[in-house]
């Protein structure tokens, strides 16, 4: 939890809710697992800010991939922040 406290000063992660991130992550974990590596990147333990920025780029359709654009389009800023801190907490 200390790690999140350190990060919430970052505006992109301000609205983060760990429990909500855990629930939302179910949608991501169908594809993103440490075992998926080839074809779909493993994101467990990635930097929270990195995940949030990537999701925003997909949401804005500045990164290509239909599935990710679709997923990100349905997420608001707080949901992106929640997912980012949750995935950051998972073991690589």
């Amino acid at each position, binding site marked *: 939890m200390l790690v999140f406290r350190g990060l919430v000063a970052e505006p992109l992660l301000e609205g983060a809710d760990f429990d909500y991130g855990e629930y939302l992550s179910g949608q991501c974990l169908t594809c993103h*697992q440490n*075992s998926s590596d080839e*074809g*779909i990147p493993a994101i467990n333990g990635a930097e929270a800010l990195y995940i949030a920025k990537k999701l925003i780029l997909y949401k804005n359709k500045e990164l290509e991939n239909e599935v990710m654009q*679709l997923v990100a389009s349905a997420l608001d800023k707080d949901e992106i922040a929640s997912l980012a801190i949750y995935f950051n907490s998972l073991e690589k």
Partner: protein
Amino acid sequence: MNNLSRRAFVSFALASTSLLAMPAISTGSARPKVVVVGGGAGGATAARYIAKDSKGAIDVTLIEASKQYYTCFYSNLYLGGFREYDSIGHSYDNLSANHGVNVVHDWAISVDSSARKVRLGSGATVSYDRLVLSPGIDIKYDSINGYSVEAQTKMPHAWKSGTQVKVLRDQVLNMPKGGTFAMVPPPNPYRCPPGPYERISMVAHILKERNPTAKIVVVDPKNKFSKQGLFMAGWEKHYPGMVEWIDNDTHGGIKNVNPETMEIETDLDTFKADVACVVPAQRAGAIAMNAGVTDGDWSPIIPASMQTKADSNIYVLGDASVASSMPKSGFSANSQAKVAANHIRGELTGSKVFAAKFSNTCWSLVATNDGIKVGANYKAGEEKIEAVEKFVSKTDEDNAKRKKTYEESIGWYNGITTDMFS
């Protein structure tokens, strides 16, 4: 657990120790109990998420007859020679070892919803506070004249993965030179909408290499199908002249199949095949019918939770449910399982219940390194699960993009099977 359900649970727990004639499977705990029937993409995911996220606060029992589960998704890739059979098989060992799920390898025979008990093939009963049914499909053998349980060795449906897909692959590999492969896809609604057409692609892939003068005839009870433009363009590109698709309006309806003569009779013509894959109409797995939570062939659900409309203690996931606009797919079942798991935890432990969000993507392989996909995300409407946004691959994509889509599907396979079984 709220007071009402705790009282109900305690009174049933007492009754079960003194009154039941048949042995009851019990872990001896006073934790709320969830029983999950069916260890596929819906059931295995639900059991794992309820056990994992409740951190031991909920006693989870998974009833699944098979010790080794062969995924339906990617069984076409085994058929086409892109996967080894063993690579689509998975065990339930980790669900017990890592999450404490009590895995019982047996058939669920019946549900007594007023007593909240499931009776197993062994005669034992298992009590529940919440029941999750994810039984997949049953084949309606009598939906095609001439088809039967016995006919399936001659004309396999191979629509439940496992040994029938092996039988079908052997038949295709041993087909006479220049012979005919016939496919009868199922009518809507059915498990895996693009599946029959990926199967045709995989058979064409084998025949192109081993038996290039062979033909494929598709006698479809429908007039259109999933990713139709993409599949038909792919067949023309990779297997020119090999695949003939005949829609229902053209052949006028399938009148009869004859597994002895290997003939498929329609109004238009009688098609004689050397190898035939005949996939009849489908319905919810028998236990959903038995539990009294179906209306017609499928089980209507409340979109926000996946609870059945008939019984709020019983949830139905995946193919057996009426989850339109979501297709009947493994991805859909996995997605629905997480919504149900979150709701069940909330009901039994008081954890926060978040709004339902669903998603699905169906990848299909048309030829080596030629992958296509269709997907959508969904929200719970009042009456149905409503699509929010959708996408589908485009016909003019370059080879690099198609290869990447195929590689993405391999990542998805590894991901979802980890999500179900780890």
